[in-house]
């Protein structure tokens, strides 16, 4: 039961942290709860389907279907997070100004919540499918009985949800004036970490060269297996032993999204709007 709880927690953690950050980043936007919940629900349903077709998926594309799927899902999430950030850099100042005037209730400006909902859904899809495969496997092999499994899974999910809630509660304590600047940075690093992970999948599929297998090794300082390592892996893309190509994708994502954000802030004319 404990093993099930730990594995489910580890799988859920990434998606839960993303939900927490996304909820903070969309603070004050009307209907965000429904959008994010819809994203999670759609992602979970998708995860069941992906788990059901796991065999077909890994056999697809001459055996690299799984890698292509994971990389595509990650890149799509990167695009959605990037889109959100670029949008926020154009309209964030108006939102913040409105939020400061009206307290926490921001009514002005319709944030493109579909982008965030999609990003959350994609995270749930990827992490969820592994959780389903794992739980289904245990259920089939009958280790420890169904009740223990359900309980373990529930504890794992609750633990993950708590972590997501913790980061949300921490973030919304930030004064509204700075909140969107902080969440933009978090989302940017989140996206860069996902791009680096996607590069690792393409490397595994032999579609990209590694440009150095282990650029450095900090596993003695902080293992990716530990909870701290796992949290940092999600939040900022921490990798103890990164391949060169991962670092390149990481930096390129920051450069492209960050550059586009800068361009939009400069040319967006947010000041003229007042």
């Amino acid at each position, binding site marked *: 039961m404990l093993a099930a709880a730990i594995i489910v927690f580890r799988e859920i953690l990434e998606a839960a942290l993303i939900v927490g950050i996304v909820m903070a980043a969309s603070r004050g936007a009307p209907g965000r709860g429904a959008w994010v919940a819809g994203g999670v629900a759609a992602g979970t349903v998708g995860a069941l389907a992906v788990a059901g077709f796991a065999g077909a998926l890994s056999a697809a594309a001459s*055996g690299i279907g799984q890698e292509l799927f994971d990389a595509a899902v990650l890149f799509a999430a990167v695009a959605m997070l990037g889109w959100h950030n670029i949008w926020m850099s154009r309209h964030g100042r108006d939102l913040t100004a409105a939020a400061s005037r009206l307290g926490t209730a921001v009514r002005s400006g319709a944030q493109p919540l579909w982008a965030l909902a999609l990003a959350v859904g994609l995270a749930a899809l990827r992490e969820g499918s*592994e959780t389903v495969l794992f739980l289904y*496997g245990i259920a089939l092999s009958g280790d420890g009985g169904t009740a223990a499994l359900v309980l373990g899974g529930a504890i794992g999910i609750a633990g993950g949800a708590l972590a997501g809630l913790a980061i949300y509660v921490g973030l919304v304590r930030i004064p509204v004036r700075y909140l969107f600047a902080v969440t933009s940075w978090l989302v940017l690093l989140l996206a860069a970490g996902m791009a680096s992970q996607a590069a690792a999948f393409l490397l595994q*599929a032999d579609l990209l060269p590694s440009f150095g297998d282990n650029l450095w090794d900090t*596993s003695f300082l902080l293992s990716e297996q530990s909870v701290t390592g796992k949290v940092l892996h999600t939040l900022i893309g921490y990798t103890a032993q990164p391949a060169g190509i991962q670092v390149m994708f990481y930096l390129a994502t920051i450069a*492209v999204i960050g550059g*586009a954000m800068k*361009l939009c802030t400069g040319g967006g004319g947010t000041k003229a709007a007042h």
Partner: protein
Amino acid sequence: MATMRSAPIFRLSRLVAPVLLLILAWAGPAVAADPKIELAIRDQQWVPNEVEVPANTKVELVIKNEQKKAAEFESHALHREKVVPPGGQVSLSVGPLKPGRYEFVDDFNKAARGFIVVK
């Protein structure tokens, strides 16, 4: 000004397109005649739990799951993670590697550990 504003989006797609083309160009000859190393997971254990691999050579790991439950080959040292469906088989490329011992586990059952020994 209106065209200036959409520039970043165009720039994004201009960057993404060549990358995708590059990926497609690579995809063809990807799984070539690299030496094959076979590995199985059976009764919660890797069989064999140590495989020897020549140094500085790219090899293809062929992993069979002989269990009724899913497994996930995972190695942080090798940056590899791949789900192996119950009764299924997957392959992934590894290397070229420097000599050393590289640990891997079944992420769904961490007690199942194994090593790739590069000589």
